């Protein structure tokens, strides 16, 4: 059983990703993909802040990141990727507007009020041989039919991944930010929809631990968010730790190791 050591960077462990029959991988030969959903449960949490921080943290692990945000309300990730107000505020006036852009050579982002507006949207992403990860953030509970939302999101993921063989791509990982009864609800839904998805629960330190079977619990600092007003992605160490943990767990799972040094 591997011993716990300092979190490895993804390129140190990417060789552990193995093809698995029935698992929908991109047809691009040397291109490894993973998909992670971010569900922001508590409405007091800043979805865009968490999404931007997580996306950039994955990019810093030598990955190409396609970051998608679905949901209403400000701020959206356009704020944190320094888009001018006349760009990131447009969805409040025209909900069909899809905000998109590139942060650097490693991260492209898209934000839309609802999934249906992404159906014909083409994501531009160069994949220069680096592993590609798709990160999709949304607010939970969903204000539409939940199971349909997950199905449509999985279809959207398949379309973005370029996987011509599959109509849907379930997430490799689901990170739940928040606490309360909604944790139980989303766990129930994801387990029915995609039982192989690895689930991570990020709760504030010191909050009542929720009875829930998840693969990894990641404590969120109570003071997470002190840079919330800055027009740039957050760089708190929490996000680097989160990305590293998620990638480690996913890599062990790909190798077929059911349990790792971190689970109970």
């Amino acid at each position, binding site marked *: 059983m591997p011993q716990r050591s300092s979190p490895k960077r993804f390129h140190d462990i990417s060789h552990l990703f193995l093809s698995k029959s029935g698992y929908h991988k991109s047809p691009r030969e040397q291109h490894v993909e993973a998909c992670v959903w971010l569900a922001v449960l508590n409405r007091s949490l800043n979805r865009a802040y968490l999404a931007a921080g997580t996306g950039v943290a994955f990019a810093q692990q030598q990955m190409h990141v396609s970051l998608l945000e679905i949901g209403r309300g*400000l701020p959206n990730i356009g704020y944190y990727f320094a888009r001018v107000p006349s760009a990131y505020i447009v969805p409040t006036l025209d909900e069909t507007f899809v905000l998109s852009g590139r942060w650097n050579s490693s991260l492209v982002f898209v934000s839309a009020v609802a999934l249906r507006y992404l159906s014909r949207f083409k994501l531009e992403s160069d994949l220069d041989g680096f592993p590609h990860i798709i990160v999709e953030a949304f607010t939970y509970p969903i204000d539409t039919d939940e199971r349909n939302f997950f199905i449509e999101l999985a279809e959207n993921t398949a379309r973005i991944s370029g996987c011509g063989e599959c109509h849907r791509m379930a997430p490799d990982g689901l990170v739940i930010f928040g606490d309360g009864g909604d944790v139980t609800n989303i766990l129930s839904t994801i387990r029915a929809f995609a039982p192989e998805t690895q689930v991570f629960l990020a709760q504030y330190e010191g909050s009542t631990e929720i009875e829930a079977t998840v693969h990894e619990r990641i404590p969120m600092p109570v*003071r997470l*968010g*002190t840079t919330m*007003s800055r027009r740039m992605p957050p760089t708190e160490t929490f996000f680097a730790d989160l990305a590293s943990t998620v990638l480690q767990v996913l890599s062990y799972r790909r190798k077929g190791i059911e349990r790792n040094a971190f689970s109970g």
Partner: protein
Amino acid sequence: MPSVDERMPGIVRIAERIVPVEVWRLFLIFCREILRLSHTMSIEVAPFEVRFHDTSGFLVRVLPYRELFVVSLGAPSQCDVRVSTTDGYISALDIALQHFLAMRSSSKAKGISS
């Protein structure tokens, strides 16, 4: 907690004093987006203004007039923005959002939960 839409009727009533349809629309959208900023956002509809405040200390007053509306941040007012066009709406909402996020950040730094 009532939904955003459920909290709009009082705002719709006070918006009736705005004459230009486009400004009226921008007023309603602005108020809706402020409500969406936080699930703890409180709203008071007074005879001549709508007041939004949050547990973080964020406060904004929106005052509808015949041809425009004024967005006033903080108490005492730190910034007033007159809105009669889409550009004015965008500026006002951007400033209000940044003010809200600054108040939230400050609460976080003090270890105050929200």
